């Protein structure tokens, strides 16, 4: 049994180590302290609300959030009225009227976040040819996850390192692969005024909006981890019982 356990641990170590080693060679953004990391991690609702404010006032000018519905904002602690108000700021295509003409209506809580551009061409033409990616899964869709997105938002350098030429219309970013990014520095100190009076430094805004995007990408994170702890504790207990039972059953073989 002990020999088996040691070999099994060694073997799993080999496999997981191989996978981790294989995956871990991308440019690293420094890791941050997130409220949602670790097995007991949770979202900080106040932070998510601030992040929502950053998204709405800054990011949403160019970036869509097409997989998230306004109704989902209830998870941030917004009440129905606030959600309806946020949704109603946008117009969406409605049902044809009685003459069959196209209409528009105010967005409802059941609608997904309305994108800033009607289509890819509109987005590109407004952004110097670059396409601002959708942010619904951004923290899952990049190596490094939230650390990477935070790194991008805080990685701008006004002066690129000596000898590095940044093409016209591009910006130097220490974390972005290739370092030339089409997105200008989106955040600035006191660029927005937080509703909860938190001091809006670039780092604070980046932290808040990345937390918000993490929630957008992984809305069930808290439920998942809570359930996980219960499931693992139950399985540990069950396995303990089964182990004891196994020994009892096997006692006459030895």
């Amino acid at each position, binding site marked *: *049994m002990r*020999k*088996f*356990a040691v070999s*099994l641990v060694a*073997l*799993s170590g*080999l*496999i997981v180590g*191989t*996978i981790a*080693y*294989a*995956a871990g*060679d991308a440019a690293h953004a420094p890791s941050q302290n997130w409220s949602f990391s670790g*097995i007991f991690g949770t979202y900080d609702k106040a932070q998510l609300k601030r992040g929502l404010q950053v998204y709405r006032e800054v990011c949403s000018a160019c970036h869509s959030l097409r*997989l998230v519905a306004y109704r*989902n904002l209830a998870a941030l602690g917004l009440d129905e009225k606030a959600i309806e108000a946020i949704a109603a700021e946008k117009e969406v295509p409605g049902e044809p009227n009685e003459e069959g003409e196209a209409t528009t209506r105010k967005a409802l809580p059941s609608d997904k976040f309305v994108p800033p551009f009607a289509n890819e061409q509109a987005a590109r033409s407004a952004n110097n040819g670059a396409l601002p*990616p959708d942010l*619904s*899964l951004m923290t*899952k*869709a*990049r*190596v490094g*996850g939230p650390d990477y997105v935070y790194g991008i938002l805080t990685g701008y350098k006004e002066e690129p390192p000596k000898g590095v030429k940044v093409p016209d219309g591009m910006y130097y970013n220490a974390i972005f*692969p290739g370092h030339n990014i089409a997105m200008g520095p989106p955040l600035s100190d006191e660029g927005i005024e937080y509703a909860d009076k938190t001091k809006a430094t670039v780092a604070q805004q980046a932290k808040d909006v990345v937390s918000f995007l993490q929630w957008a*990408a992984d*809305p*069930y994170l808290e439920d*998942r*981890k809570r*359930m*996980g*702890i219960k*499931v*693992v504790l139950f*399985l*540990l207990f*069950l*396995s303990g019982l*089964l*182990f004891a*039972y*196994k*020994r009892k*059953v*096997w006692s006459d*073989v*030895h």
Partner: protein
Amino acid sequence: MANGGSGSKVVKWVDSRLPIFSFVDHALREYPTPKNLSYWWNFGSLAGVVLVVMIVTGIVLAMHYTPHTTMAFDSVERIMRDVNYGWLIRYIHMNGASMFFLVVYIHIFRGMYYGSYKNPRELLWWLGVIIYLLMMATAFMGYVLPWGQMSFWGATVITKLFSAIPWVGEAITQWLWGGFSVSNPTLNRFFSLHYLLPFAIVGVVVFHLWALHTTKSNNPLGIDPRGPQDTIPFHPYYTVKDYYGIGVFFIVWAAFVFFAPDFFGEPDNYIPANPISTPAHIVPEWYYLPFYAILRAVPDNFVGSWIGFGYIIVNAKLAGVIALALSIMILFVLPWLDTSKVRSGRFRPVFKWFFWIFLLDVAILGVCGAHAPDEQVFSWFENFDYLTLARITTAYYFIHFVIILPLVGKIEKPLPLPTSISEPVLKGGGSAGAAATAKPMEKA
């Protein structure tokens, strides 16, 4: 059940018309099993459990999934966000694929170490290799379904391998695609086949178990049971041991599902498929990496110049595809490549070392598969890239099967085998290997 008293009237009535109770009794209760199986023998039942969980979660996912290129990605996200506990079912299924391969790889290497493929278990081994092949096909097509960037580009790279086949390759590839590139018909048929193949696996598993129950289980000593004193009934001894194994295994699985659900995945697959934007690195899932390395390792015109394929122009791709196919097909002849009559590695002092070297070789191949061929392996050692490493380890992979195994079997002097499972050491053989087996059972 059949010979038990409970409910016996109904049971007897049924059993005399359809001996299903006798069958279950015979196969799952009485089945005489060597009493010395170690925990390495748990992984077969674990694989069966994963298969069932995968089918159940897969059927539920299929109820919510839309196999159309414009909707597949969003339908998976809908499962993750709007279907009740959809995230849980999807994460179980997604990580289940990795768990399945993890368990099956351990199961396969256990068979290799203890010589479970040898006479009389060659067909049992073959059926296992067939299951493994079906698993690879199923997992590949399943990975395409979320229609992310890695789904699309992985599918493109792998299906294009068929185009390396001379003359008909191009036609075969288009036939597989149902078009001129990986597109909606491809996604549709992959969904259909991804649903079908697991049931084919179930079918082969039945044959695998049938063969197992005919030849009976191998055991860590690799010697046949001499009589009833060497075996115990499967139930309750191994049923309870399997339950315990399942409990522990579920903890590992749950740890990934709940705390690191994307550990095995590629971030790129959370970007919707885009046929006009190729990811920087197209990397297959971890369980294919060693074979991916073998595929890329074969030099240009290797087969053409070394084996002489005559007038067929063998390009690097075809040579790589042949090497890839051979690397798995060679498992079918493994029972005859290993010339040693001794099954268990415990009594094979030379083979034992080569087994671990082979395992390491496969792991290194996996690392090579994850890296770009021109990437340097060491920062402190120049001109040694992953392609070179992959070539060395690929060569060793085949050398292990074709040269080492046949030779070691002939040259090696095995340790004395115990006379029976119950009384392994009568002559007091002094070797450590034999002494370890003196314990009748690896007491848990």
